[in-house]
């Protein structure tokens, strides 16, 4: 029989241990040198005849048994074997886990790169005026909570995320929704987790008190030190926002620590000309006191001067590699490290996540506009092309199912031969919409970046596994 190694990625640890990441299952196998050689021997175009190959081996019994193991584990398979049948979608209607409430579409900053108000916005409105109502009213906030409780099936826990615009411009709606959710959750016998993203300009004592009291998961959008923050994150008159947010962030972090709240993360938008990632990471964790930092390359259409070009992505990958060294050092001491991108990736690698869709948008997560319209996620609300219902009439299941069917990884033929597909699954819908005008296509413009980043994750996984395998127990549920 003609056999061939399936789509995979080989990687090594620092001390020479060899691993195989199998893209069809997302399994990570440690292999000895002889087994690694078998994986490589069958990784040739057209495959090899197993009997002829075994006959050529010095120790035929060992060769046959190794090959047998690899076939059973799905690493080497018959050439032309049809893929095992699998469901396109989970049973629908899929119960919601998270609802993102865009409580306002107004903002007090005018960040140049903003996907909501900048050049790449999806909304039809005029700059910071947005479309529809500028603020979500209390009734819509309550209806959103009712909708989430109704649409989350028998999930014992649901998440409510507040977003904007600048979220805290509508603090009254956040308060109403939170208090109403506390009340409603009791009758539905559910626990509720709250989270919020803010630019930190409006973190008053009252707000901080409320957020920490309700154990909010808080993400602060901040680009780094004063120079980086003020480059793009400016008030409407053009003044940088660093001086306003710094004392407020410090106050939040101190109060949250006193109240033993959830960890607070910084989210950094990376643009061309930004300071090196390790510098920004150290500033935000050591100088300001954030628990973790996530970095996101800016979403940008073609030709934006703040976009990361190919060289920008290469530089970014090198800097991620430098920060990964810190992560490994912490992991060997069995300590967590706040480099959120790498931590999240290692969690997914360890669990063996194998995605049919890039994220939960439209599946377990939906966004709500200020007027109660449902979108695939917070980035799509008010974009009429991806409306999937309203909080009062419920989800338009036909539209939802049609979108998810079209966006399935099996329809992204560009991804067929990519080892990163179990984790990337074609990438962000919104990014694809901005770049290609179609949310269901693969984001081919950052393939090299994603592959490079996942490769970094695999090598980091191998290094930690060699030296301190018990580190990964924290990622097991």
């Amino acid at each position, binding site marked *: 029989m003609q056999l061939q190694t399936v789509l995979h990625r080989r990687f090594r640890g620092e001390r020479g241990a060899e*691993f195989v990441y199998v893209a069809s*299952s*997302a*399994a*990570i*196998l*440690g*292999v*000895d040198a*002889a*087994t690694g050689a078998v994986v490589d021997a069958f990784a040739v175009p057209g495959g090899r005849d197993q009997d002829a190959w075994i006959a050529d081996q010095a120790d035929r019994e*060992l060769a046959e*048994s*190794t090959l047998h*193991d*690899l076939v*059973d*584990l*799905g690493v080497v398979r018959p050439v032309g074997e049809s893929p095992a049948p699998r469901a396109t979608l989970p049973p629908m209607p899929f119960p919601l886990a998270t609802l993102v409430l865009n409580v306002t579409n107004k903002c007090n900053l005018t960040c140049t790169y903003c996907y909501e108000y900048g050049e790449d916005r999806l909304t039809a409105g005029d700059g910071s005026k947005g479309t529809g109502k500028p603020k979500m009213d209390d009734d819509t906030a309550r209806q959103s909570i009712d909708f989430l409780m109704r649409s989350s099936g028998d999930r014992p826990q649901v998440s409510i995320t507040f977003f904007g615009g600048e979220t805290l411009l509508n603090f009254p709606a956040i308060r109403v929704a939170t208090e109403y959710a506390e009340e409603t959750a009791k009758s539905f016998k559910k626990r509720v987790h709250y989270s919020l993203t803010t630019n930190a300009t409006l973190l008053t004592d009252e707000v901080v008190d409320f957020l920490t009291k309700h154990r909010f998961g808080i993400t602060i959008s901040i680009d780094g030190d004063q120079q980086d923050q003020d480059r793009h994150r400016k008030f409407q008159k053009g003044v940088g926002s660093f001086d306003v947010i710094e004392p407020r962030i410090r106050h939040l972090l101190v109060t949250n620590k006193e109240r033993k709240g959830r960890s607070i993360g910084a989210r950094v938008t990376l643009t061309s000309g930004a300071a090196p990632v390790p510098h920004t990471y150290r500033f935000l964790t050591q100088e300001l006191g954030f628990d973790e930092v996530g970095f996101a390359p800016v979403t940008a259409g073609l030709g934006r001067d703040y976009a990361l070009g190919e060289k920008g992505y290469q530089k970014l990958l090198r800097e991620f590699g430098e920060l990964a060294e810190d992560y490994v050092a912490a992991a060997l001491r069995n300590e967590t490290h706040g480099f959120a991108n790498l931590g999240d990736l290692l969690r997914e*690698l*360890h*669990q*063996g996540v*194998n995605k049919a869709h890039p994220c939960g948008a439209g599946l377990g997560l939906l966004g709500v506009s200020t007027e109660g319209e449902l979108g695939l996620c917070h980035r799509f609300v008010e974009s009429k092309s991806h409306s999937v219902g309203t909080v009062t009439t419920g989800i338009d299941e036909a539209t939802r199912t049609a979108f998810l069917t079209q966006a399935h990884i099996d329809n992204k033929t560009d991804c067929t031969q990519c080892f990163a597909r179990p984790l990337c699954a074609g990438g962000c819908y919104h990014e694809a919409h901005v770049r290609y005008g179609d949310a269901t296509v693969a984001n081919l413009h950052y393939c090299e970046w994603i592959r490079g980043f996942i490769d970094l994750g695999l090598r980091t*996984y191998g290094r930690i*596994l060699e030296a301190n395998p018990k580190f*990964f127990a924290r990622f*097991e549920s």
Partner: protein
Amino acid sequence: MSNVPNDPDVPPRRPTPRILACNQKARQLAALVLAQRGQARALTQDPPPTQYPYGCTTIFAPGWEVDSGNGTHGLCQPIERDLYDCYHTCYWPAQVPDGVTNSPKWTMSCGAPMQDWKSIDLVFP
């Protein structure tokens, strides 16, 4: 998984595994593979399996024409058995109603197939 055999001239030591299931998904896969080992057997294997699989897609059957001795005398006799192998177990993939999911009561009217087989009615899907 399997282990490298120990060399009799070398003092006994813990054998080195050739393949290690590292992440959670790999561990699930390895557990599945080990649980299934020894369960799949060819029907012509010696000694023959004591239990036959159920359903038409789990086994490889040589075909209608010959029996296991390459003759015909061991084929289903009386011929009504063919009907029941197709119907009850889906053993042969033939055009009869399936008794596994869609038509479980199809042969209820037929107490003794060798005499009553004509009483089995047609099924219109």
